[in-house]
């Protein structure tokens, strides 16, 4: 199972349905919109990848959904995010606290920053149950903690319960984080660059584990990453973000076979691809850099860097529209790939 591409569960009702999510940041230059009217859905057993470069708004999307935006720095400025029908964005802080870790969980890039460095692993795992399952006895909590470590395939779980985080390798710490995130059997897991800090061989192990757990538990996963290889091997659907907006969304095979937004095409062609042969043609460059969100260009945000832009691209912001099986925010997008 873990070796094959995960199979899609069709037509299930979305676990999470986000509409018009808008997040702003207070900066010295004033208010800046970092997530601009984002729509997304994820179903049980499905992985939606959000891919983008630094500053695209992908991590801010995750923090917005978890209601973990830094106080006074960033704030929600509109939209709805329904988790099984309940709008996360309008819940009281108290209700959200109850939901977080129980129905919706998150894992981060660097597990060391999310684990308490001076608390034993077992204690940290059991704390989750104290918060969400107060009816359990201490003995039951310890048993459940052991089961969780088994679930994430940690060998010798009894010993690891008594370890401190720094006793563990990076890969083992990420397994512990996943165990904590799954403690209360959430419906939705948000994974923000979960393997970026790990070495290639360990990254492969963790991604295998996430796929296996998804198949076992029917988890809906929002996978946030900059790595297109990780997207290709793990997602069912892909959402490409640029400068705070969704520019393209498509089923994974479709997106990689027929990227329709010039930015998506640029990203894919910028990657060296050893499987394409031994040649050393210059890599496709996307000229320039991502624009500052405080000074977005007029019209399409990608237009100043776009190799195919026309005058109209600098006039109005392109709306997201259906193009074949994809949604694309580009006035030039067509059913096939333009030459």
């Amino acid at each position: 199972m873990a070796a094959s591409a995960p199979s899609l569960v069709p037509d299930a009702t979305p676990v999470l349905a986000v509409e018009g999510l808008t997040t702003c940041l207070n900066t010295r230059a004033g208010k800046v919109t970092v997530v601009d009217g984002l729509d997304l859905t994820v179903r049980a057993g499905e992985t939606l990848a959000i891919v983008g470069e630094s500053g695209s708004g992908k991590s801010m999307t995750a923090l917005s959904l978890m209601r973990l935006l830094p106080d006074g720095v960033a704030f929600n400025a509109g939209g709805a995010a329904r988790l099984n029908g309940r709008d996360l964005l309008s819940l009281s802080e108290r209700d959200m606290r109850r939901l977080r870790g129980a129905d919706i969980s998150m894992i981060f890039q660097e597990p060391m920053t999310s684990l308490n460095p001076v608390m034993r692993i077992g204690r940290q795992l059991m704390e989750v149950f104290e918060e969400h399952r107060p009816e359990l006895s201490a003995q039951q909590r310890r048993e459940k903690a052991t089961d969780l470590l088994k679930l994430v395939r940690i060998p010798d779980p009894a010993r690891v319960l008594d370890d401190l985080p720094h006793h563990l390798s990076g890969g083992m710490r990420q397994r512990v984080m996943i165990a904590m995130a799954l403690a209360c059997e959430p419906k939705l897991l948000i994974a923000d660059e979960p393997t970026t800090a790990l070495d290639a061989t360990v990254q492969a192990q963790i991604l295998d584990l996430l796929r296996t757990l998804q198949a076992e538990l029917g988890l809906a996963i929002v996978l946030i990453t900059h790595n297109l290889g990780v997207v290709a091997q793990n997602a069912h659907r892909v959402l490409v973000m640029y400068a705070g907006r969704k520019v393209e969304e498509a089923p994974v095979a479709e997106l990689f076979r027929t990227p329709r937004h010039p930015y998506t095409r640029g990203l894919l062609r910028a990657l060296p691809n050893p499987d394409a042969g031994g040649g050393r043609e210059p890599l496709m460059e996307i000229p320039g850099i991502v624009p500052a969100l405080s000074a977005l260009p007029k019209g399409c945000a990608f237009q100043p860097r776009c190799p195919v832009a026309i005058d109209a691209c600098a006039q109005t912001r392109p709306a997201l529209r259906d193009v074949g099986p994809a949604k694309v925010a580009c006035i030039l997008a067509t059913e096939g790939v333009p030459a």
Partner: protein
Amino acid sequence: MNAQPIFPEAGPPLLEVRDLVKHHGRVRAVDGVSFAIKAGETVGLVGESGCGKSTLGRAIMGLAPLTGGEVRLDGQVISDLPYAQVRPLRKRMQMVFQDPYASLNPRRTVGTIIEEPLKVHGLGSAKARRAQVLELMARVGLPADAASRFPHEFSGGQRQRVGIARALALNPALIVADEPVSALDVSVQAQVINLMVRLQKEMGLSYLFISHDLAVVHYIADRILVMYLGKIVEMSDRDRVWKQPLHPYTAGLLAAHPSPDPESAHAPRLRIEGDMPSPTAPPPGCRFHTRCPFKVELCTTEEPALRPLPDGRTVACHLVTVAADGTAHSPTEGGEVIPASRASEPASAFPLSHS
């Protein structure tokens, strides 16, 4: 760019590393590494964090004294000699770092930063140096007005261009580039890689290109060295590393590389389990045996030598065999891959996963 470039044996290689050892206290970061780089060649050095690849790069550059072995440039020993003695030779080797921001003085202008190596080596008048700085900036694609600005005013990609311009100032023969594109976004990474390839053609540079990214290394390098726990386990030309890896670790590293092609998801994979052991106490025998799915008794007791094969490759694995016709065979051949479904087997299937 033939698979087996034939170089006339006119003289010594540009860079020669012999039995290089670098220990930090008990950490055996680099533990006996030998290889050579020819003029105009790019050698890729790939491995995971803690394998010693960065330490090796810094040791070659003379940024830290060696524990053992030697480094030769144009046939002359340059390691462990007084700086004044090797200074003229040192000019011929420069380094480019991963984080261009950390390696650029934030209080100096870009022009001053690029000029500094020229000043240190007392080259040219102030006027001539300024002209040269402008020429270097143009060469790496920096605008002329960048000279009077500070590093923080630039994007990561632009800062890496500054780092490259500084490295080029002394017209070196060899650049040691340590993860030069790892901190950059994909779209900018392509810009910097293309720049390095173009500069190599224009200036006849050699590169030692250190990276954890096998696809990037494959793109830029002529030959690839694979390092594991302070040792080289395989040396081969780029295409054969990708298409026919010999060492099980190379094969595992390759299988772990997520291909940006969803259609390849069904390919069988060789999964390397567990983590790299600590370099303070490398395992006896083959250092990879604790994670190797093919290991036999011999691997746990006797360290495999790095041996040259008839086909021009070099490998350190007891289980690589050479057939009568001279072709080399990896223990990973013949469908004996470990299915990734092992990952979903009970926890006991994971050997040595934590220490």
